[in-house]
């Protein structure tokens, strides 16, 4: 699936990824390929991403919102 993490200042990350874990308001959750359409609020925490080469990336965010649609994930981080 395609992941984009954008902040108001810049684009933090854009690539194809395998899985990602997000800090949801009601607890952390993971997203895999072909997830159903979803909009969720995020709290302060870490986004953990595993890309196609199994390399792990970690991004700190101060809250935000995520939209999953048609195998495209867009994180609006703060």
């Amino acid at each position, binding site marked *: 699936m395609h992941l984009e993490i954008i902040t108001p*200042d810049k*684009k933090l990350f854009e690539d194809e990824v395998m899985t990602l874990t997000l800090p*949801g308001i*009601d607890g952390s959750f993971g997203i895999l390929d072909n997830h159903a*359409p979803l*909009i969720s609020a995020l709290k302060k925490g870490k986004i953990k991403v595993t890309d196609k080469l199994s390399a792990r990336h970690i991004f700190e965010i101060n809250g935000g919102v995520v939209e999953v649609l048609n195998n495209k994930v867009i994180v609006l981080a703060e």
Partner: protein
Amino acid sequence: MANLKEVRNRIVSVTSTQQITSAMKMVSAAKLRRAQDAIVQMRPYAEKLKEILGNLSGSVDASEGGAYSVERETKKILIVLITSNRGLAGAFNTNVLKSARELIAGKYAAQFAAGNVSFLTIGKKATDYITKNKLSLYSAHNELFDKLTFDNVSPVAQRIMDAFSNKEFDVVELAYNKFQNAAVQIPTLEQYLPVVRSEESSAKKGSSIDYIFEPDKATIVSELIPKSLKIQMYKALLDSHAAEHGARMTAMNKATDNARDLIKELKLSYNKARQAAITNEILEIVGGAEALNG
């Protein structure tokens, strides 16, 4: 007849002024490009945020931004003035201050007479203006333009939002220069709080996609509204920043042109004076020779 030395000195001083203005023009052009880039960077975020809010407004009334959309009787007003820290930018700062003055003389005249209009200033020029005219200054944030990032702007926006929800103010207005292009800035007045319901987001109702909402729509909306308010503030600042450099670039360009015209005129009168002096000298020599030949 103009004194030769005087004219020469003036030419020298105008030339050095011209060098300064053309250097400032170049600096502003470079800064303008960077400021424009920042706006371009921010745009996808703002658009996506708007889109998600639009998706949500399908069934939840997106204008119900909780504490931030309460319409109270307009008694206490906060006007946020966004100007620049430095001058020499043409009518850039004057335009914002003028539109604010019109606001307190017209729409909020009654509240102003009762002393219920306060100002939050961003930019030294606005702060100076408010203190000079002894208007009530709520707080000043001149340092924002030193490092214009979302992380720096966000606490200021949060502070305004808190003041609104604590009923310190009933209406918050933004006055700033919108960036149109390098030569055109539009002085803009915008109601910041309470949140104005945007017509277009409520128009495209009922998106066909069946989203899962985590935890629920109302929570997401209440998360998103403050976010979009902060973005609105950030956007106004970025706009003003780009507009400032655009205005300065235009002003300095004009100043350089004027200096060039002035130098041309001065050179002309210098040469005229020089020629008159030479003619005089020749006349004297010829006159002297005639007298000797007598």
